[in-house]
């Protein structure tokens, strides 16, 4: 079947989202990516795989988002010196992904100006690649010193502030190298990878069923989005197993509950970061109310392990559904009142407005994802772009802003919070009857499945290929933070150092989901 946007043959994959897959030569890669970019296709993810156990060499994989769906391009690479023309000149966000693909699989992006390691620190030596099939997961190398050449800013009065990996607050670890003059940030360079704990390698030791629990722990604050994405990928690989309609509606409820909880918490912290501790206490009271409700209805405060391949693990009774509607309505009313207080608080707005700006043009170039992208004029939301259950009848309202500053991200978060509450209310009222889970068909080796879900932070992708005996051959997990971390480096330029925590929190990017 022809994939009309690129004029190549691509096979539709089974699964919930419109997805196509094609194999291309390394020689065609650059031209096709240029063509895709000219049609405003987004780069969703880039990763590598080892195909040597299947008689091949290695492979590069690229996921591009088009209006008609996701195109998964595979580029077979040679066993000796696997290399391909890099695409970071077309899609800047590809730079770190290409470097990570080298660190883990040993496939080399040619003509990429940056050849520094990315996810590798000192846990394994250069020239050794953990995601190769001949690498044993238990293979523990002596810890080596991590030498990483940061880019230096020189000049009169310029100096550096190194921050992390252990940060001052309760935050995930990462390193930020600020080059500043006075209080003004001239340059920020991030160094991530501290949390790399071998998730993708670990998945390859698991069955498709077992992987669900680990997928739900790739990034704890997005456990529902990852679990759904993973389940969707497994269902696709199992020949298109369709979860019951009730299960799909429940998945929608769970995902929107996760979005509400995260926005409540972050909006509270954003108040705290501008000395409005009132906001922290009020929003964290509401968040706690919601977490307790989650525990009462589903048995887990963060809804972990609720979405499983084939459906969901827990049903919602009529009485529980009524309770959910009642409590959510209370939260909705309180949030509306608090929003007015935030909007009218001169001190908070003064700190929010024009701080940490990413203008639409830059956002488009960097491929800024999720709500942060929407706050910078990028009008994409998987729940809106593709009409698939359970969102197709709900007419999801896309929240949007164009100023791209902290205030815009706060505004989009408030809008999405209100919209998510509306969506949950609709989903609960229209909850179809029936089963909540169907058994998964046995799958054979070499089947592909894609999970693609709009999590609270942005689009999460799981690209899966099955192995022998219902096991995983390769499972790549992609967090939207890959796109947004580099944009944060731009957002802080010209701002003062004390505004960094505020700007950072307004994005609230994932370290664990990125480091894997």
């Amino acid at each position, binding site marked *: 079947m022809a994939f009309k946007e690129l004029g190549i043959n691509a096979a539709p994959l089974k699964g919930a989202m419109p997805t196509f897959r094609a194999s291309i030569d390394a020689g065609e890669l650059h031209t096709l990516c240029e063509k895709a970019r000219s049609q405003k296709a987004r780069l969703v993810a880039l990763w590598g795989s080892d195909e040597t156990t299947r008689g091949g060499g290695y492979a590069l994989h690229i996921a591009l988002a088009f209006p008609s769906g996701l195109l998964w391009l595979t580029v077979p690479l040679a066993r000796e010196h696997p290399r391909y023309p890099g695409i970071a000149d077309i899609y800047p966000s590809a730079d770190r992904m290409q470097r990570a693909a080298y660190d883990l699989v040993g496939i080399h992006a040619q003509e990429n100006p940056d050849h520094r390691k990315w996810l590798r620190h000192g846990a394994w030596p250069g020239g050794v690649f953990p995601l190769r099939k001949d690498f044993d997961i238990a293979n523990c*190398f002596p810890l080596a010193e991590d030498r990483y050449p940061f880019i230096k800013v020189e000049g009169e009065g310029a100096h550096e502030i190194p921050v992390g990996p252990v940060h001052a607050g*309760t935050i995930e670890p990462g390193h930020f190298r600020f080059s500043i003059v006075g209080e003004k940030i001239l340059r920020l360079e991030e160094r991530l990878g501290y949390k790399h704990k*071998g998730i993708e390698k670990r998945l390859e030791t698991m069955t498709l069923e077992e992987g669900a629990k680990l997928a739900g722990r790739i990034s704890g604050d997005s456990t529902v989005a990852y679990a759904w994405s993973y389940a969707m990928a497994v269902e696709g690989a199992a020949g298109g197993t369709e979860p019951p309609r009730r299960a799909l509606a429940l998945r929608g409820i769970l995902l929107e509950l996760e979005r509400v909880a995260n926005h409540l918490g972050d909006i509270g912290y954003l108040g705290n970061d501008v000395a409005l501790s009132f906001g922290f206490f*009020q929003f*964290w009271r509401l968040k706690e109310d919601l977490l307790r409700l989650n525990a009462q209805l589903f048995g887990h405060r963060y809804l972990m392990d609720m979405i499983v391949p084939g459906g969901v693990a827990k049903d919602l009774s009529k009485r529980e559904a009524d309770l959910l509607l009642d409590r959510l309505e209370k939260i909705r009313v309180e949030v509306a009142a608090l929003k007015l207080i935030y909007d009218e608080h001169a001190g908070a707005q003064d700190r929010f407005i024009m701080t940490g700006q990413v203008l639409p043009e830059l956002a488009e170039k960097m491929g800024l994802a999720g709500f942060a992208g929407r706050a910078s004029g990028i009008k994409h939301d998987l729940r809106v772009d593709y009409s698939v259950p359970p969102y197709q009848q709900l007419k999801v309202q896309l929240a949007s802003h164009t100023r791209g500053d902290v205030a815009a991200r706060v505004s989009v978060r408030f809008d999405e919070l209100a919209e998510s509450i509306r969506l949950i209310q609709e989903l609960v009222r229209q909850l179809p009857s029936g089963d909540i889970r169907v058994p998964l068909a046995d799958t054979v080796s070499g089947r592909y499945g894609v999970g693609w879900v709009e999590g609270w932070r942005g689009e999460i992708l799981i690209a899966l290929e099955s192995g022998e005996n219902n096991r995983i051959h390769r499972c790549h997990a992609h967090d939207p933070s890959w796109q947004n971390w580099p944009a944060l480096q731009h957002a802080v330029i010209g701002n003062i150092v004390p505004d960094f925590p505020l700007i950072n929190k307004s994005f609230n990017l994932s370290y*664990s989901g990125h480091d894997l």
Partner: protein
Amino acid sequence: MYQLLKQIVKTGIKTEAAPPADDALRLLQQRLHEQILKHLGRALAIRHVDAGSCNGCELEIHATNSPYYNLERLGIKFVASPRHADMLLVTGPVSRHMETALKRTYEATPDPKLVVAIGDCGCNGGIFGENYASCGRVANVIPVDVAVPGCPPTPLAIMQGILTAISK
């Protein structure tokens, strides 16, 4: 301002009772002298170190500062540097990339000090276990006084772990 004050009055005080200590959570016998515990019990400074978690445990550590739990009312607060801390609250399986940072943070914390490991991963490596990139449980890297299981442990369980570490 009127709306803000009205909201504060309307909300009232939400803080609930703190949990009791639980000796079952101990990995090591109490290392600290009674005299020191008397002081730590009223003014404890905690440095949190995420050594490789999925970030789930951090969500619940944040929640301990929410109005329902309000850890700070017990004289327990989070500080920005290990040099100011009496206790390290460590989450995660310790990734090998965080091994050095965690050891340095432990060394930078002045004696006498306590370590509380948070979550299933901190207790036993959890679902990530030990591999080329993960050291597994926190006690594999630094001495741990108290370990709090859960995925993630609730704010009350975390508070209980902290209070156990400073109990006799």
